């Protein structure tokens, strides 16, 4: 994180380091919403469980969307549920992230021929990270959450909030310049 000096309305502000500090804090308190729709919900529970203890990364589940940063689309989404998920997403505070966990949330998965299933979470929500698997292993979900951490790390959101961020460049992708985990 290179320190940058930004000109504020009243004088100089060292926004870069503050951004870095804030991102560091945000990165290590990534709270996900305890919300699962289908099979992946069990693996979501196991991820919070003792084996892949996500508390190690400061990832704690919250029961209310108002306190959550990450919405994990864990499982098949039916049309009846889609509008409720949208409602949950709208209740979350900015900045918020969405993870599509498993094949059903990615593309509808094995329910391509079903009349009642939404073919992919990205048809009605902006999805940040897609995790393959049916259901993905807890470690897989952990990796997805870590990708969100990497994305947070390079987010200039304070600059953006200050109105000083040049918005002609698209938001950095989580994979851009990131290192693979292994």
């Amino acid at each position, binding site marked *: 994180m290179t320190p940058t000096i930004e000109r504020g309305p009243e004088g100089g502000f060292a926004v870069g380091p503050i951004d870095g500090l804030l991102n560091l804090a945000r990165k290590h308190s990534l709270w996900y919403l305890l919300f699962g729709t289908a099979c992946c919900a069990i693996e979501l529970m196991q991820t919070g469980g003792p084996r892949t203890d996500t508390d190690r990364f400061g990832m704690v589940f919250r029961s209310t969307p108002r306190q959550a940063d990450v919405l994990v689309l864990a499982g098949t989404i039916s049309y009846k549920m889609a509008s409720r998920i949208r409602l949950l997403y709208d209740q979350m505070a900015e900045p918020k992230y969405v993870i599509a966990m498993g094949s059903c949330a*990615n593309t509808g998965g094995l329910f391509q021929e079903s009349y009642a299933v939404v073919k992919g979470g990205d048809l009605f929500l902006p999805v940040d990270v897609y995790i393959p698997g049916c259901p993905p292993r807890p470690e897989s979900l952990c990796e997805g959450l870590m990708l969100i951490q990497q994305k947070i790390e390079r987010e200039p959101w304070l600059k953006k909030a200050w109105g000083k961020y040049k918005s002609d460049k698209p938001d950095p992708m*989580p994979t851009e310049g990131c290192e693979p985990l292994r």
Partner: protein
Amino acid sequence: MGSFSEYLANIGRSIVTLGDGLAVTFSYLLRKPFTIQYPDRTEKPVVAMLPERSRGILEIDINVCTGCSICAKQCPIDCIHIEVVKDEETKQRVLKRFDIDVAKCMFCGLCVEACPVSGLRHTHEFEGSMSDVHRLMLSFVDKPQPVAKPAKKDEPAPETKPVGSIVRKLLADWWKPANPTSGGPR
């Protein structure tokens, strides 16, 4: 008075049974921890710790594949796409496309059971998180190449690449910033 003593007895029983439970919980302070420190603080990578039969992301060794398309027919949800054409000059069957849609795959293993040459297999790889769902369509054929001949009875089976190496390379390629298809708007 009876109800009052019952009330006190209730409180007493609650404290005693709660103590029993807490004793169990505290005993876990002295036991071996159960957590696996994914991703880095493990003796060996998690992928190597998985059991032999673990079904991870699919991969195909195209040097072995005979282009018979049995796997694509077996797949209940059509997530394997194979294209085999006949080359007019060499009269050989050429494998043009072998894509596996990992974003749709349900990891059931029916295709692997059906593969007659064991070219298609489940790896132990599970780390394939992507920010773009289209990248989860894994293409195993870079340029068209002739399909392999099925091995004769007395011939030794053709050598296959180590399980997992193909898909690991394929997934790692996406991480390179030089890749023109990486990045860009969602």
